[in-house]
């Protein structure tokens, strides 16, 4: 009897320790590299700040270069479709393509506008968090000359090509994807995808034509 119980006991301890070892090994293997993400954010963030604080560039140049950064490092297609919320399902391919194009232009103009007063800002990258869905959150702050800081959260995922892609940037709680989705929602309810496209077309259509 004692031998049996002792055997089961030893067996159980063996199982527990194996499971824990496997869990640690699995976490390590499946966690994307946070240091890689932080370096990525440093590089992209610095590129954005250098661009937006470069007063020698014309507005058109700033917009063009900011668009290049978005295309290189942001998953604009995913972000654009996310902002449509549940209306994404009903949108036709043509509507989606048109909306993605206009959303990109609207984002470029919005960010170049909002940060045009910035001077000598410095990006400081903080901690990185790996979520269980393998997306990564990198926290950073933009140190302003006035003494006020902007907290910037970057949400990333690793693509099949092993490149990191940004799918959300949150500046002091205001997200490129999530806040925009909330903003667009009432218009989508009222006028549908066509209504939103037609609004963006009126405001940014001419710029989209130059793309």
């Amino acid at each position, binding site marked *: 009897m004692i031998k049996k119980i002792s055997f089961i006991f030893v067996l*159980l301890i063996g199982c527990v320790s194996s499971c824990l070892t496997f869990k640690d090994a699995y976490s390590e293997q499946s966690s994307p590299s946070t240091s890689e993400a932080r370096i990525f954010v440093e590089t992209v963030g610095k590129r954005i700040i250098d661009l937006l604080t470069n007063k020698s560039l014309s507005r058109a140049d700033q917009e063009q270069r900011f668009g290049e950064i978005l295309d290189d490092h942001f998953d604009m297609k*995913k972000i654009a479709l996310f902002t449509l919320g549940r209306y994404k399902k009903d949108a036709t391919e043509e509507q989606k393509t048109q909306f993605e194009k206009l959303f990109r232009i609207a984002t470029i103009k919005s960010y170049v506008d909002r940060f045009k007063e910035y001077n000598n800002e410095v990006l400081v990258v903080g901690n990185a968090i*790996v979520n269980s869905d393998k997306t990564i959150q990198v926290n950073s702050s933009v140190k302003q000359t006035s*003494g006020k800081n902007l907290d910037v959260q970057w949400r990333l995922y690793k693509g099949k090509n092993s490149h990191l892609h940004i799918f959300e940037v949150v500046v002091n709680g205001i997200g490129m994807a999530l806040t925009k989705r909330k903003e667009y929602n009432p218009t989508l309810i009222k006028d549908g995808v066509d209504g939103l496209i037609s609004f963006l077309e009126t405001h940014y259509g001419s710029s989209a034509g130059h793309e």
Partner: protein
Amino acid sequence: MRIIERLYTRLVLFVFLLVAFAFVQQGSLMADDKTPVMSEKSKKSTASVTKTDDDDESVDFDMEAALDANDMGDIADPFAPFNKVVFAINKVLDAVLIRPVSIVYKKVFPHFVQRSVESFLFYLTEPVTLVNGLLQRDPQASYNALRRFGFNTVFGFFGLADSASHFGWERDKRDFGQTLASFGAGEGFYTVIPIVGPSNVRDTIGLVVDFFLDPLYYYAVSTDRQNLLYVRSGAKLIDTRSRLIDITNDLDKSPDPYDSYRVTFTDNRRYEVNKVTHEDDKRRAHKSGAITEQLETSIEEKSGDKGQND
């Protein structure tokens, strides 16, 4: 001998049950941690490692879940018709008076003057932060406000320069709206206050309480210099408006400016409140079982490291 054998058997059984219990607990924790991963993995095996129509090169992950899109927290706005009227009046007032004055202020006054005004107005809020920090059970915030106030009084010419920030004592404004949140008060419904703009019930109460927490109020009342309060309020309005011109220009271009202001204000305000309560962070950490790596370095430090490595 039999007694010893029985005792040993019971002891082993007890330890066995204890280990089994620990194993079950650990197992459930692991299951909690791994559920989203397993679901993603199973999605991959069943649905798509292949490219989807809206995802050219990404691994499959649920952006809705990643951004908590279904848990965004609606903004209660039962008095929307009334708020829209106040919003429209504010817009007219802004267009004919506040915005033009702010633009003139921004264009006419040198940058260092504008920074001094902004710095001085912030300096006046430090005593309010000191009190709210204590009420929020965050003595560090109060201590920071106290040292900033003292330092800027002496080395910042009574707050005209924010020398404390250059010294590494960064701004950390606390208000009574956050204090109420730290005691568990919800934000209530959305409101638009005449001249002030977007707010909610909790922050409106906070605004009133902060007004009475302000030592300048008691100084002005006791010395019969109420004009000081009007000048301060006017300066604060123009200073804030001048710094928000680019953002409001952008919000005004949105499909529905009322909604854009409402959403932008609320997201920003929830973020500021969360900095004090950490409720969202706790919820997300619990939900995702996040693994955090504290790696505090700056760009400068990083480039320094690179230099050393090279």
